[in-house]
């Protein structure tokens, strides 16, 4: 098995450290436990089993959804709220395709339990649209940073979060900081161009 050289996790997106040496399944369940642990810590030791109704704050709207403890945020977004921008690409979180913002931090909805994000502000890629799309989306169109487009929503959210944190990012930083997202069609070259364009228009 080829070992990929570690990169500095500049943005906190690089999940390689976390995944290294662990199988996909172990990684997924670890993430689930971690998420549950956080939930416990914040909500007190509350025991949830079977189906319960919870309220999530998604794109500024309170949404009542039905979940089991095992239900992921991704499943709720996609199947109950029809917010299908975040994509299920793998059961582990190794591709970035299901990236959404939770309290402005990028996380993988595929390995986050729905019960763990009650009382948090969830932003999905759909909130980037509307009459005045986020400049990242427009730049993706302008530079054709998308082919099949299946990875694109996750990439858009990741780029937005990365640039919010690094508004003056250089090309090198972009190449170092967005390694959590996978594209099979090979759009990386134009993702770099698009991200740089957003940086440049910010600076003007």
């Amino acid at each position, binding site marked *: 098995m080829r070992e990929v050289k570690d990169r500095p996790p500049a943005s906190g997106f690089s999940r390689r450290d976390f995944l290294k040496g662990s199988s996909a399944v172990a990684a997924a369940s670890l993430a689930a436990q971690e998420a549950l642990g956080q939930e416990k810590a914040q909500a007190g030791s509350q025991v949830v089993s079977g189906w319960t109704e919870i309220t999530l704050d998604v794109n500024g709207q309170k949404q009542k959804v039905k979940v089991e403890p095992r239900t992921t945020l991704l499943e709720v977004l996609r199947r109950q709220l*029809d917010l299908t921008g975040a994509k299920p690409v793998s059961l582990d979180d190794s591709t970035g395709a299901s990236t959404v913002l939770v309290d402005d931090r990028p996380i993988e909805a595929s390995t986050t339990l729905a019960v763990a994000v009650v009382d948090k502000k969830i932003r999905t890629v759909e909130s980037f*649209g509307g009459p005045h799309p986020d400049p990242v*989306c427009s730049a993706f169109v302008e530079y054709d940073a*998308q*082919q*099949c487009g299946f990875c694109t*929503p996750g990439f858009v959210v990741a780029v937005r979060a990365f640039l919010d944190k690094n508004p003056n990012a250089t090309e090198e930083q972009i190449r170092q900081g967005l*390694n959590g997202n*996978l594209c099979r069609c090979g*759009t990386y070259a134009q993702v770099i161009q698009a991200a740089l364009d957003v940086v440049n228009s910010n600076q003007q």
Partner: protein
Amino acid sequence: MAKIEWPAADRTALIGGRITRIDGLEKSVGEAKYTYDINLDNQLVAVGLGCPHGHCKILALDAAPAQKVRGVVHVELLKKPDDEIQWEGELLAVVAAESEGAAREGVARLREALKFEELDVWVDDEDLEGAQGAKRTNKAGDRVKLEKEPGDDDDEDEFVEQEIERLFKESKHVVEGYYGIDAITHCCLEPHGSTVEWNGDKLNAYLSTQNVSGTDEGFAGGLGITADDVTVTCKYIGGGFGSKFAPDYWAIEAAKIAKKTGRPVQLMLDRDQELKLGGNRPSGYLKVKIGADADGVVQVWDSQHWGTSGPQGGGVSQSVVPYVYQPKNHRVVATGIRTNTAPARAWRAPNHPQACAMSQTAYDDLARKMGVDSLEIFKKNLANIASRQTAKVYADEMDIAARLIDWKAKWHPHGKGEAKGSVVEGLGMAIHEWGGVANDSAAIVRIHPDGGVSTFCGTQELGTGTRTCCAIVTAETLGLKVDDINVNIGVSTYPISGASGGSTTIGAISESHRRAATEALNQLCAKVAPKLEASADELEAVDGRIQVIGKPDHSVTWKEACTMLGMKPLEASASHKRGNATPLSSEGVGGVQMAHVAVDKETGVVKVKKFVVVQDMGLIINRLTAESQCYGAAIMGIAYALFEQRLMDPATGRFINAELSEYKLPRIGDIGEIVIELYEPEDQRSRGVIGLGEPPVISPGAAISNAVCNALGVRVPVLPITPERVVAAMQAQA
């Protein structure tokens, strides 16, 4: 009457420009709906149980444990006791449930209760002798061509043997080599699958497919209905790369479950199933001896290669070995190895990337052995090529690529570059060819009295920008803007258009849309002609107006012209048949690629510093998306050259890295600088449209392997060139 031809380069408004996708924003804000995104009322989620062993006999498979799981609605058993399974991952059963959690729990219960007998497994596709010993090989094909013919009295085999021996004796330079390329998977980010519903006896199938017009029959055949009762819809697809031409049995099963439960069903493969079942590219390993004259022109090639396409053996076709470069004398023998792996599927430019990686590496090793510039060897050997592009175009493209990568200044003899610490750099190149003929395609163009224009075509948006190109060609023809055209594709009830495979789509849709739009325009001009006091064939559509040719002051606006249609929209349809003579499209492209790499001799890590793609494709419809095809191909090429490989466990036949955390693909930090140069001089442009999807993905393996060899002075024989393999090759040398 406007004629069926393309406007001259200086007379186009849109064609050849850099035009952003009409569906780009939908994709980037997550509104584009893929098969996986379809949510129908009351829809069930279905998950498959994959076979956990590479070769086994089912002893017990029981639905009951899954049926007991709360939320599970239906369990469909696909196999039964005594069935023999030939590869891991093959679906044994499908569980349909109210939620993903319940479906997965059901599958887990099935797996616990599953009993099977392990049978002998063979997954090693590189060990030819071992496979022969295990009786796992079959003859896959051979080919001999010699300049000299045997005499009437000669025994043919003996003659060939003696003649090849003589040619090697006469050769000034002889090189023997071993080269290979491991099996990889298509790894579409949207897995194979469907979302299906029945309306009475009619099936509505949302299918992740690159063959919208051709999959209704697959469903019908599998379900005992007729194709007219099936509508296949695919507005967006998350990758296909040659693996999504048919519904596959799991989509048929989804339809059966939907029928039995009376509810819509979604069944998408899980990630590991996608890698195991959803398509893989045959491996290839080749032993070769080549003989060249004093100039380095290869005169004789003698090779045998082997590999696997799965249980049938197969491997890389002998028809494209050696690749593009074809000495006048050659003998090629191919052997297939039957493995317990899922059958291979067409992967972008079937056979070509492997053939290129297994043969143009040998040409580079000739340069290494002679101690001469690889570019010179690649140029001189253009004297003997078998290609659908000309030697002159290759030579031009080589000059352009060499300039872009600064070959002259940066090239050094193999292994003789200056080391910076443990890092050495090198250059490598390769060339390729492809057909790219226009597929069958029909389209309807409708002009409405209010000026609106819509088009209908049963093609698909595979990610290549097809939807946008339909709009460009139609808008160009009607003198409108891209946004003025309402493009309708991706539904099987639209006019039939061929599958998107083999780079046949851009030609296909350019043909059908140009023809249908020209016909529509001619009809419209006939209506407008009296008002402009001219005949219809004296009119043209330019810049939102219908005018007397060259006279903007004798014109009406597009809207005005359309009101002359009265109450009824105007509709024109046209089609193109693959292979018909046409001024709009043709076939046969070349292409040259060069790589500049840095290799760390201590760690074995290879980094691509710069990668240059020079590509011809006849006439360019959309420069922006054409470049994207080249960028994407270069990156997919870097993937199979340096990262991805299917790793099989010889004891159990399990695909051990079938998750994306373990199946390595390049990330944004791994690609270096990529430079694309589209080659479109008038003598290429005038050939018309030629497909571009496959050709640029062919050369990267050989180009990168050659660059690594140039850096190290040592050949790392098998792709992907992983750090272990670099280190092993260095140690073998020392």
